[in-house]
């Protein structure tokens, strides 16, 4: 998407940091998410063993992706599904829109899917003149407010309940008369029920593609996926090829990890396996069942050493625990996927040149990998993007010049020691007590926090002094 731009990341981040309401909204959700995940993990003695098993299952699938893709296709076709392949986001949207047109569809219900967001499907449906109804409560909020998701599990996390109450009062036929969350949820239920019943096509994503049956799995807490996929004449699934698992049992093993990491529950209220269209005698279900299998950079990731990222279950734990995400929120990242996993994926989807700042907007504290249910080495992958950005000459000249200067000095110990000695003494002149409130060339730091006053002598000077003292 064109929203990504190196200079624009900094301005978006600055705008987000200045938005106190946003900070409040992010904090209300991620604080709960962290506490619930921690409790769920503490409650399950087998978690670390299961996490290791989950990682190996995903690696096994990725190592044999062609095998499982062919097996899935064979079984899906046998169940009556029509399987499509899309190399790019654009191709995937074209296929979906063609199916909608062939079905003479007017109204389309959609159940939240990150792959759908990734390929820009909501926008493509609107541009094709189709009536799109987002049925996930958060996506409904995002649709009404005409903005973008800011989290992969809670897309409307950037809205406070006060914002949402006002939004529903403006748009709903019979809005809630109080600002409590239950009233708002009831209002959305009333509003969306007619949409569910009148839709021609339902579109969902898939959390898993089950190779040995050809079924696809959706998980929701609201029940909107089932209403989206059972009532309309046509069900279209869009899914990334990395969602394959060998069998139902493997899906269950990963589900335990996914749900606990995402919301802290042990299972979602609704976990549904969809296998083909309506069968003889069935009283409900879609007449046609299409599965669009999407590459969109995934085979390139495999070829370029980013295969570990294909393990990702899209649980959102990495962003809930990320100090940067918690300060700036999802929109500042500019891509579809925010947070640590987004900083790794966005350069694949949008190009490194436009998104190289994301890999730098990371403290490398390692928390994301610790909470990742499939142990993706996110910090190492972010460092990999920094290396690539340097090697491809994408870092700005001033930065290259400064680092060149540092490298020149670092290779000459006497010059380096002289320089650091001088710098420390100069910096100490700005101190007031133990802290420095304002420092030339470091306004970016001191605007938000004081800089500690350096010690009187450099580490090397202290080290030399210690060495000279015989019994120290």
């Amino acid at each position, binding site marked *: 998407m064109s929203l990504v731009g190196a200079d624009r990341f900094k301005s978006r981040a600055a705008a987000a940091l200045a938005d106190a309401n946003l900070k409040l909204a992010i904090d209300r959700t991620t604080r709960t998410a962290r506490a619930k995940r921690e409790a769920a993990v503490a409650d399950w003695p087998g978690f670390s063993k299961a996490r290791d098993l989950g990682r190996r299952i995903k690696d096994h699938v990725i190592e044999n*992706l062609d095998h499982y893709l062919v097996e899935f296709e064979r079984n899906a076709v046998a169940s009556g599904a029509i399987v499509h392949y899309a190399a790019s986001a654009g191709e995937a949207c074209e296929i979906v829109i063609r199916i909608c047109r062939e079905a003479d569809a007017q109204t389309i219900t959609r159940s939240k899917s990150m792959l759908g967001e990734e390929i820009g499907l909501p926008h493509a449906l609107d541009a094709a003149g189709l009536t799109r109804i987002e049925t996930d409560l958060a996506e409904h909020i995002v649709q009404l407010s005409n903005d973008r998701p800011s989290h992969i599990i809670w897309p409307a996390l950037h809205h406070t309940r006060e914002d949402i109450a006002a939004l529903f009062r403006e748009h709903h036929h019979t809005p809630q008369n109080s600002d409590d969350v239950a009233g708002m949820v009831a209002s959305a239920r009333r509003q969306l029920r007619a949409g569910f019943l009148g839709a021609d096509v339902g579109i969902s994503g898939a959390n898993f593609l089950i190779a040995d049956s050809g079924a696809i799995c959706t998980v929701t807490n609201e029940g909107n996926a089932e209403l989206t996929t059972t009532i309309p004449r046509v069900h279209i699934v869009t899914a990334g090829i990395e969602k394959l698992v060998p069998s139902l049992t493997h899906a269950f093993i990963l589900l335990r990890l996914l749900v606990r990491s995402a919301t802290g529950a042990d299972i979602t209220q609704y976990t549904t396996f969809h296998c083909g269209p309506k069968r003889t005698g069935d009283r*409900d279900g879609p007449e046609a069942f299409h599965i669009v299998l999407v590459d969109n950079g995934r085979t390139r990731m495999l070829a370029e050493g980013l295969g570990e990222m294909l393990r990702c279950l899209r649980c959102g734990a990495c962003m809930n625990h990320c100090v940067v995400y918690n300060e700036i929120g999802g929109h500042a990242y500019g891509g579809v996927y925010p947070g640590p996993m987004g900083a790794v994926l966005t350069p694949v989807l949008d190009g490194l040149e436009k998104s190289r700042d994301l890999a730098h907007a990371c403290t490398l504290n390692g928390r994301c990998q610790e909470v990742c249910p499939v142990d993706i080495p996110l910090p190492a992958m972010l460092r990999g993007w920094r290396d690539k950005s340097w090697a491809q000459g994408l870092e700005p000249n001033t930065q290259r010049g400064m680092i060149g200067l540092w490298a020149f000095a670092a290779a000459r110990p006497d010059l380096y020691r002289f320089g650091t000695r001088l710098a420390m003494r100069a910096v100490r002149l700005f101190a007031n007590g133990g802290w420095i409130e304002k420092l030339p060339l470091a306004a970016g730091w001191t605007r938000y926090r004081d800089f500690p006053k350096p010690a009187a002598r450099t580490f090397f000077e202290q080290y030399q002094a210690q060495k000279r003292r015989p019994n120290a």
Partner: protein
Amino acid sequence: MSAREDMLAAIRRALPRERDPQDIAATAEALALESIESRPRLPNSDLAEAFAARLVSDKVVGASVDRVARLEDAPAAVRRYCAVHGLDPTLVLQPDPDLQKLNWSGFTISASIGGDETLAVARARWAIAETGTLVFHSSPESPTLLSFLPLHHICIIDRAKILAHLEDYANAERSAPAPRNVNLITGASGTADIEGALVRGAHGPAFLHAIIVG
């Protein structure tokens, strides 16, 4: 099908070695079996007790449970539920032959489901004690929407069909062809989309009631 061929070719270029499908299947099977070592332990070896306790715990949203000795006692249990919740004795009954044979006198029964039903009564195929989950397979005798459109969802489950873990369900149905829909239902519909606060009755039922038979 050129997009398909391109995708497979790109994968095979990135994964240069050939592997025997039998080896792949053996590795997958070994991985599946390993879950025995890590799956959550049940608090009670009696599966009906464990399932019932789980349903009414704070881990499951909006669920309640009742127990009866025989399937014939189910209508009386449904009547009790209606009384507790102040509901008219009007319900949609799953077109399951065994349920249809029961004595539903005093109830107004509807066979098909509309967009805004109050109460549906259905028989679940399996239950899973680990998570407090009820499992439905879609079929002419078990429409999917029965579990999603009503406000109150009453699920009847035979004690003998309560399994311990999710994997046990996969094993129990291993040799059977996959139905169109498998619905694993755990409690009432809910959402945490507004500030992470959990609210029940988002789009699906706001109440789930299990009746364990036997």
